[in-house]
Structure formats: C-alpha cells, structure tokens
C-alpha cells in the first residue's frame, strides 16, 4: 500500500513544470485563504478574548456623549463591583507623524491599571507615572514605532481637546491578553480636566468596571443602569464582550463577504488541482490499463490516482502553510498590529488555522481526484491497450 502510494507520488516528477505550477497556484490560493481566515479569526478574537469580568458603562444614547463624573463614585458603591476606573477618549495627533493612528485615553490614575490589569506595567514605571502629572504610559508597539523612551518629552496635538499637550513618557506597557491593543497612549485624567475648556470639565467618557463574580455580570449591569434610570443622564452598561460584539455587528456584511471569498478561493484551488489530476489521468490511461492487465484491480487504479493527488495536496499544503505562516507572523501580522492595532490587536496565524489549511489542501486534492479516479478505474483495458498498439 505504502509502496503503491510512493510509486503514484513519483508520477508528479513526470511533468515537473506542471507539478510546480500546480503547487504554486494551489499554494497561492491557500495563502490567500489563510490570510482571510486570520482576518476573521483576529476580528473575533477581540471579543472572544475580551475580559469576562469587565463591564463598561456609557451614555445610554451614544458612546460620544459624556457622563457626569460623580457616576463613577455611585457605581463604586454597587454590591459586586470590585474596582472602577473612568476615562475619556482624548484623540491625539503626533505633529511629526500626523497619519499615525492610535488610541489615547485620559484615565483615572489610581485605579486604571487595576481594572485593566492585562496592561502590564512595571512597578517603577507606574510609580514614576503617578508622581508626574504630565506622565504617560505607552504601549510597547507604539513606543517602538515612534522611538519613544522613558524620560522623553513629547507634544501631542489634541483633536477632541484642541491645543498642544505636553507629556513625559513615564513607562511602557505590554498586553498580556490577545484582545488588548499594544499601541495605546494612557495619561492622567486630572491633567486633561485641569486644562480642559470650562464646558468640558468634570465630564467622563465611560466607566470601566471590574466585578467580583463573573457569573453576576449581567445582574450587576442591570443594577447600575436601574440606579441611573431616574437621573438626568441614563446609562447603558454591558460586558466588554457584548460591547465588542455590538461594534462588530456593524461589520457583519463585510465579514460575511470575507467568509464567502475564502470559500470561493477554495473552489479555485479545487479547480487547479482537479485540472492537473484529470490531465495526468488522461495521459496515464494506458499505464492503468497495463496495471489492470497484469492483475491489478479497479480499486488499485483508483487508489493510484487518489494517492498521486494526495501527494500533490500534501506538497501544496506544505508550501502554502510553509510560506503563509512565517510571512504573516513575521511581516504582515506585525505590520497590521502596528498600524491597525485598534482593530487587530493580535494578527497572527493560529496553529489551528495552519493545520486546518493543510488538511483542506489534502482534502481538496482527494475530492478533486474522486471523479478522475472513478474514470481511471473504469477504463476498458482492451480499448486502452489497442489505442497506441
């Protein structure tokens, strides 16, 4: 059996040119497939990996309307709430690199890194930050890209809060969770509030809440919203995952499209493989007839065809995955994480995606060989032998 497989696989050597082109074509399709699956996977990862025990409270009507600052204190008193940190979107541009997009947040200094404990900061950096009103903690990806080091003085241009803002880099954080962006810019809410125009003072964008018991998240969220029902500003509280999902829902058409395209790519791959296999079978008809004459049975011949196809599939899969894996994880993925970190904080080919792609390459080759193998098994021995003499 193994012997037959190896003999069948050797047929791939017959037409090197065709074999190489087929493998290249199938591998390119596989690489495209892997990239699309990784986009979909990374997108989902943001909510998949979102903290289960964290809630966010925002204005009931829309994300961009502010809440009164004292709401944070009210929420702190709700039973089951472990820690609370309020924050504002800042919106910043780097004057020397105006196209650089990154999230900037003015946060409640004392509690922020407790609520967001997956943003890991060293104790020294944190102490330095707390002691400096203009201090900022920066994601390691952003810091590396901009060449910022601890102690640097920088100036950002505010977009929501106009003007030039001075900061000192106090420290660097690194995310310990795949859903967290490594390119954020975090600084003191007090600094923002003190310098903000009068009409923007004492207002907060949203409140992050850590609960003691994950299973009670929904209940606590309801309790919070009920508390503010009768007040002048109502709130909407939901889990981080629900928030991410509601954000993603807006892109569902796009995601479906990507899904469909990835299936179409597999269809193209099937055609590439099928074409080569069918061509090979047509050329080898007489050899199959000779095998039959010698005493091999139709199932041997079918096995022969499928084995050759499987060898082609294995090679295509190995080449496709072998290229896509390092290519995405070392080049594309890094570039995407650096430039689109807010959307794809973690863009890497998962081992499961790679394994799936490999299995698909093998499976498609087998499927593509099904019809040719049946044909080859049915060849009339006498007719095939008479054809050339």
């Amino acid at each position, binding site marked *: 059996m193994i012997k037959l497989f190896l003999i069948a696989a050797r047929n791939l050597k017959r037409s090197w040119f065709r074999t190489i082109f087929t493998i290249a074509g199938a591998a390119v399709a596989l690489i495209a497939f892997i990239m699309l699956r990784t986009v979909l996977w990374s997108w989902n990862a943001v909510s998949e990996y979102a903290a289960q025990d964290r809630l966010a409270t925002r204005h009931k009507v829309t994300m961009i309307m502010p809440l009164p600052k004292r709401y944070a204190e009210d929420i702190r008193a709700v039973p089951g709430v472990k820690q609370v940190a309020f924050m504002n979107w800042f919106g910043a541009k780097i004057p020397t690199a105006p196209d650089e997009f990154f999230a900037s947040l003015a946060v409640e200094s004392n509690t922020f890194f407790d609520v967001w404990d997956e943003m890991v900061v060293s104790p020294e950096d944190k102490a330095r930050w707390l002691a400096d009103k203009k201090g900022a903690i920066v994601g390691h990806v952003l810091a590396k890209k901009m060449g910022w080091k601890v102690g640097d003085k920088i100036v950002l241009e505010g977009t929501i809060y106009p003007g030039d803002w001075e900061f000192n880099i106090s420290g660097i954080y690194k995310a310990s969770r795949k859903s967290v962006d490594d390119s954020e810019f975090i600084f003191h809410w007090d600094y923002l509030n003190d310098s903000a125009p009068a009409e923007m003072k004492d207002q907060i964008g949203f409140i992050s809440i850590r609960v003691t018991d994950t299973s009670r998240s929904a209940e606590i969220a309801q309790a919070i919203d009920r508390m503010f029902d009768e007040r002048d500003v109502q709130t909407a509280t939901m889990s981080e995952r629900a928030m991410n999902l509601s954000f993603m829902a807006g892109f569902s058409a796009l995601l479906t499209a990507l899904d469909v395209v990835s299936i179409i790519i597999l269809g193209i791959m099937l055609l590439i493989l099928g074409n080569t296999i069918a061509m090979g079978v047509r050329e080898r008809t007489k*050899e199959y007839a000779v095998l039959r*004459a010698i005493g*091999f049975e139709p199932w041997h011949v079918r096995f022969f065809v499928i084995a050759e196809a499987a060898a082609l599939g294995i090679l295509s899969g190995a080449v496709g995955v072998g290229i896509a894996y390092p290519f995405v994880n070392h080049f594309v993925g890094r570039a995407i994480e650096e430039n689109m970190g807010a959307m794809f904080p973690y863009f890497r080919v998962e081992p499961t995606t790679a394994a799936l792609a490999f299995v698909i390459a093998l499976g498609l080759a087998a499927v593509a060989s099904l019809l040719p193998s049946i044909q080859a098994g049915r060849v009339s021995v006498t007719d095939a032998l008479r054809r050339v003499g």
Partner: protein
Amino acid sequence: MTPSDLDAPPDAGKAEATAPEQNRKSAAPPKGKPIIELVNVTKTYVRGKEPLTVLDGLNLTIEEGAFEALMGPSGSGKSTLLNLIAGLDRPTSGKAVVAGNDIGSMSDGALAKFRARHIGFIFQSYNLMPVLTAVENVELPLLLTKLPAAERRKRAQTALRVVGLEDRMDHYPRQLSGGQEQRVAIARAIVTDPTILVCDEPTGDLDRKSADDILALLTKLNTDFKKTILMVTHDPAAAERATITRHLNKGKLE
C-alpha cells in the same frame, strides 16, 4: 518456474531439461495436456447499428509447453483472440478454457486474479512505467502478492538476470534501448512464474538484431523454463521460431 529454478543453471541435473527435446522444429506438435481450449468461440462487437463479428466460431487447442505463432492480416482478430485467452475479454459465445478456468463465466475480479496468476503479458510497445527503474518495473506484479519486500526484490533481480539485464537494474526505461526495454517487459512477465506468456507483436518495434535477441529469449523461456507461449506476429522470421504457426483470416483459423 520458481526463483530457485531461475537461480540454478536451467539444465543442471534437471530431468525434464536433459530429457531429449521433442523435435521442436519438426511438424509434429509437442505432446502434452491441453492448456488452452477454445470451442466454437465467437466475438462480436456492436459498434453503432451493425454488429461486427471478429472471431467466428473458432476452435483451438494449445498444449502445455507449446510455442505458437499467430499470423494474419491486420484487423483479422489476432489481438482479440489473444486478449480473450489472456482473460482481458470474454467470448460472446462459445467456451474458452484456459489453465482450467472458464473465461466466459468468470467475474471481473476473478479474471484479474486469473491474469495475475497465469498470464504474463508482453506488448509491442513494452509499456513499462517510466517513473520506475527496471527492477521496480519487474517487481510491480509482485506487489499483488504477500511476499515480503526483500523477497520481491530478489525475485525481480533473478528475473532480470534471466533476460540478461543484471547490469541495468537501476536504469530507467528512457535510459534503455528498445530491445532492453522489451527484455525488462519480459522479466516483468515471467517474475510471477505464470503459466502462459502472451505476446502481441513483441518484436514489432525492434530492429532485426534486437528482434532476434528477443526471439532467442522467448525460445529459451519455452525450452528451458517450459513456458507456454502464444505470440502474435507479422514477421515470418519470428514465426519461424515457433513450433506451430497458425493463420487467422476474417475471424477464422486456417
């Protein structure tokens, strides 16, 4: 023929081999039990609306150990007859018994096993697998047996030695001459020790010298290894080698 037979010098101390050969070149056919018996065999192809009778009420008996040549004009049904005897095809009517098997009544699977067990094929165009070396080509039919790999390889090498290609074992078909390719094909045909060798114009693609070598080899397989050989040929010189030459014309033996 078993590997040990092949290993030993063919006529060393062997009763059959040392016994006086029945005057091979004489008119008298060799005495032996019939190995092939065709009774009133008809083969009709239906192409379109008109049926074409290729073999027409044929009777034929071939004895064990015979070396027979089959001649006749193109389209007279020689290959059809050969394929029938080899179990590649079934008669439309009549009875064909080969090595004790009634070809007409056997299933496809049974015919495949019959071919593997009893028939060695030698084709005009050699039909070797181009991706396999000489020894691998010869080994191919043994993949159907339960023999261990080492034994398979040993038998394939022995068969190649019989055809005089011991120094070409690892050559690919494209690295061999036509005559050498045909000898590899003969080694492949005999490696399973079949009862009958069927050859459809085995020298058709060869020059005179190579053709003579192949015919000498077939004669050796017949005399020394007692193979029954049935050979279709257009070449009168080839037919000379056979003990009996039959002529087929328009589906009838004359």
